[in-house]
């Protein structure tokens, strides 16, 4: 994980990743197959070489054994030659220097000259059974008088004579260095047996070392570094017995201790182990070796080839494979870069473009002449950008329109709001006015009642006394005042009804305008499409309200007209009455006699008061009705107001939405 983070894998470019994986795919199989081939090559060379070494060492071991066998057989044969036995006895028992002695010596020498080389030996020594040295052909070899007592009593030669005696058979001595002789030598010692079966002595035949070592120094099949190591064990020390390829004077000069890390092959061989493997040789080099044990000589023999030489071809192969890999790497790298570029460049262009688009620049234009996936990608991106451009432009224009519409809607609803408020106030005024009218009517009614009472009283008074004439005058005076105030009130009412007229006009105008507005709104709503749906509903409601308002004003007109008529009637009546009252006042002096007339008149007036009274009542109730209508109108105006508020809210929201959209669109460069 940390490695991936470290090399920042996720953020590497497409070209880098493609190149990497391309290289990886090319190099990895190469590496793996190289490793496998190398492994197999090394193992099979290892195996084959050790096999070859096994065959070689076995051959050499068998050759050495054969050589030994031939020497022992020859020695046995020589030991059984009767003439030798006889001559040996003569040498033993006759006097030194005597003729028999000399003759015997001569015969043995002739015998030796012929038989010894013929049988593959170099020299000959004859001992008597007690070990006395009877005859020898080795120049400069000091054996002493008796092999068991002289300077050589502990030598390998002496040991071989003893052993030959013990086993009564030929024995091969150890290779040893003897003073006076340059190279190490060995002997095949055999008993000399007479025909009667008695031992007449021992013959020690010097083995032709060169012939023996020729077997060992045959480096056929061992390449240029191959070697044969032959060793003999003495205690814990292994002597090298035969010449080595690089060290001619190896015999007895080169050695290795048991347990040393070098000379593993020869150490194994000395224990009778016969196998092979990769080991460190006596000289300290790594070799592929196989070893064997030669029981006749008690030698270990190890045949080896330098690891480097054996593996030479494998190492060469490695070098070649390495060169191939390196050689492939450069073209592979170039190909990787080329291929990845051909893919990543168009993609990079597409990336660049889309980044610009993301940043808002829709003016970019892309075109590609390629027919592959990258070409298609670029062209598609180009088309996409063009479409986006036209779409956004369209949206921009639409929002501009919408903006204007919203603005006008806003204005309209504002106006409508004002108007409705006005209406509200107006209807409130009207309500107040009608209340006043109602109150006034009530007052009038009460006044009427009062008048009736007064009239009654007048009548009564008139009936009861003429003395009350002054009271009557007063009363007439009051009546006169009263009628004046009534008149005034009636004109007030009249005035007011005029006001109502104006108001109903206004209301009508409003209703008309509202209708218009709602129509407009409907149209605009249509234009705004789904944004305008709510709007259309509102417009419809508004229209309805406007219609209701129009109807209400018609009713008002009617009532007002009736009212006016009633008022006018009242005024007329009042005027008439006032005249009459005045006349009555003037005629007060004539009352006495005219009391009855007055009373009659008053009595005659009473039904008229009743009519007026009823008229007043009617007016009052009609004024109530107006009041109620006004209240309804106020309600309607309030609802209208609420609807207008909603409209206002909706237009605000629309305005906000348009702003948002505008804000978004503003990012684009078109």
């Amino acid at each position, binding site marked *: 994980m940390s490695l991936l983070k470290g090399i920042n894998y996720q953020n590497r470019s497409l070209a880098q990743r493609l190149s990497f994986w391309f290289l990886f795919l090319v190099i990895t199989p190469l590496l793996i197959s190289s490793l496998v081939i190398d*492994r*197999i090559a090394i*193992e*099979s060379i290892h*195996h084959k070489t050790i096999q070859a070494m*096994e065959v070689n060492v*076995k051959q050499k*071991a*068998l050759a050495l*054994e*054969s050589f030994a*066998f031939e020497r*022992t057989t020859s020695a*046995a044969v020589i*030991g*059984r030659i009767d003439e030798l036995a006889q001559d040996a006895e003569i040498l033993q028992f006759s006097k030194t220097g005597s003729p028999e002695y000399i003759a015997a010596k001569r015969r043995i020498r002739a015998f030796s000259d012929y038989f010894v080389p013929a049988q593959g030996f170099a020299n000959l020594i004859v001992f008597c059974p007690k070990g006395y040295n009877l005859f020898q052909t080795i120049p400069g070899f000091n054996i002493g008088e008796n092999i068991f007592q002289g300077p050589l009593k502990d030598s390998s030669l002496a040991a071989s004579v003893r*052993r030959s*005696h*013990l*086993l*009564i*058979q*030929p024995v091969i001595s150890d290779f040893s260095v003897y003073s006076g002789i340059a190279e190490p030598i060995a002997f095949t010692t055999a*008993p000399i*047996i007479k025909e*009667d*079966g*008695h*031992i007449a002595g021992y013959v020690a035949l010097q083995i032709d070392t060169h012939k023996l070592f020729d077997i060992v120094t045959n480096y056929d099949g061992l390449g240029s570094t191959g070697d044969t190591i032959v060793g003999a064990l003495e205690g814990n020390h292994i002597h090298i017995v035969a010449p080595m390829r690089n060290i001619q004077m190896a015999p007895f000069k080169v050695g290795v201790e048991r347990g040393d890390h070098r000379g593993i092959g020869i150490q194994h061989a000395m*224990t*009778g*182990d*016969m*196998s092979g493997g990769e080991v460190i040789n006596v000289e300290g080099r790594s070799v592929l070796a196989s070893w*064997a*044990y030669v*029981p*006749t000589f*008690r030698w270990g023999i190890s045949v080896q080839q330098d690891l480097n030489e054996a593996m030479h071809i494998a190492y060469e192969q490695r070098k070649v494979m390495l060169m191939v890999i390196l050689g492939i790497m450069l073209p592979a790298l170039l190909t990787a870069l080329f291929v990845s570029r051909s893919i990543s460049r168009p993609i990079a262009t597409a990336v660049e473009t889309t980044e610009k688009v993301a940043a808002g620049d829709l003016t970019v234009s892309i075109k590609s002449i390629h027919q592959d996936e990258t070409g298609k990608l670029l062209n598609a991106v180009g088309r996409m950008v063009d479409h986006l451009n036209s779409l956004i432009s369209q949206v921009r224009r639409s929002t501009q329109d919408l903006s204007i519409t919203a603005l006008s809607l806003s204005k309209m609803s504002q106006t409508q709001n004002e108007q409705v408020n006005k209406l509200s106030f107006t209807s409130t005024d009207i309500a107040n006015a009608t209340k006043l009218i109602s109150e006034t009517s009530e007052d009038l009614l009460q006044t009427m009642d009062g008048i009736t009472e007064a009239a009654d009283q007048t009548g009564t008074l008139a009936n009861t006394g003429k003395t009350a004439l002054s009271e009557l005058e007063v009363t007439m005076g009051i009546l006169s005042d009263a009628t004046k105030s009534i008149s005034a009130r009636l004109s007030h009412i009249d005035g007011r009804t005029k006001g109502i007229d104006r108001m109903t006009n206004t209301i009508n105008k409003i209703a008309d305008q509202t209708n218009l507005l709602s129509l407009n709104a409907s149209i605009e709503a249509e234009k705004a499409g789904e944004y305008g749906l709510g709007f259309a509903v509102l417009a419809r409601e508004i229209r309805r309200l406007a219609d209701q308002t129009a109807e209400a004003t018609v009713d008002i007109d009617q009532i007002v007209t009736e009212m006016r008529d009633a008022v006018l009637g009242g005024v007329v009546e009042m005027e008439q009455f006032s005249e009459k009252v005045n006349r009555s006042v003037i005629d007060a002096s004539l009352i006495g006699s005219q009391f009855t007339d007055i009373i009659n008149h008053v009595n005659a007036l009473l039904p008229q008061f009743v009519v007026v009274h009823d008229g007043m009542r009617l007016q009052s109730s009609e004024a109530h009705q107006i009041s109620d209508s006004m209240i309804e109108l106020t309600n309607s105006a309030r609802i209208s107001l609420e609807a207008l508020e909603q409209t206002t809210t909706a237009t605000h929201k629309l305005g906000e939405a348009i702003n948002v959209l505008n804000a978004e669109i503003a990012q684009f460069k078109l």
Partner: protein
Amino acid sequence: MLRFWKEHEQQEVIHLGILHALSGPASGPTENAIVDAELLAIAEINAQGGIMGRLVAPEVMDSGGDPEKAARALISERKVSAIFGCHMSICRKAVRNIVEEQNSLLIYPAPYEGLESSRNIIYLGATPNQVITPAVNWALENKGKRFLLIGSDFIWPHMVNEIAKDALMAINGEWVGELYIPLNSEVTTQIIELIKTKKPDVILSSLVGISAKSFLSALQETGITAHDIPVLMAPSISETDLDTYSPKDLVGHYVAWSYFEALNREENQAFIKRFRDRYGVDRRINDIMQAAYSGIHLWAKAVERAQTIEINQVRQALLGMSYQAPEGIISIDATTQHAWRSFYLGQFTKDKSIQPIWTAEYPISPLPYPTTRTKTIWDSLEINLYHQWNDHWYAPLTKTVQ
């Protein structure tokens, strides 16, 4: 990597025949013990993964009364790759016919008379030149010149004594008498008489089995101790027989073998430990057991080297093969198909063991035909005896040779 594939190919078991007298007159504690030693070697080989990745399956068969039949069964029915077997020469001579006929391989672990070389037999056991000659030589140097030669009346003791006579002749010794008693006879009065009359310095005995036991106890009863006249035994009585003997009969006498249990060698101690871990601390180990054990390991090494169980290849691989055995290095001589064996002279102790007192130091080469006489002479000697005994390898009735 290559070996991995090879191992997967060969998963079959290798059958190895084990043919010893487990019943009948030739059987005894030694033969069963040899089987045990061979099975130990096989177990050790299998514990290492077998040979060429294949396990070795021992096919133990009783040679009993009919070694030929048993050998035939082993080869044809049990499909053995080789047979380890026999002790007595009679068994070996019978099995020889079969292995030569079927081109199989017999590996023979016991000391014997030599005078034989079959292509189909590997002779691990010591030939007389490897054990009798040095023994006689030592006795002459240390005990005296006058030898009495006694033995059971079958081929081996006769050859032993011929070789002994040659040796005595060569080194100026003499034999005062040569006497044979029939196999399994307990009548040793004649021998005792001869000893009393001739008064030899050394008695060279190749009596076997019950005859040896009777003789030694009879000798002891006469009052003749080993100090007076030592008995030098050819390889006949070994550690596995000691329990059946009364120590006073044996103490002080000598025996020659290629191996003793008491040998102070690292390989020997380790081998004895492994044997006793498997079979029990009281078990005794003798030369033939050790030779058979070593032989199995030698054979396994040869098969591994040859990478096949095919008889000729294995034989070729065996020739020249060496093995660090408990006794020393045992090598198979390429020219004679016999083995290089060490020589030890041992003395019986009073606590039922054999103490090695002298050795020839390093292994002796095998000479199935001693060079004291020609091959022709040796062969005719053997054949004459064979015919003399009505075509048997042992004498039918009492017969003495003066």
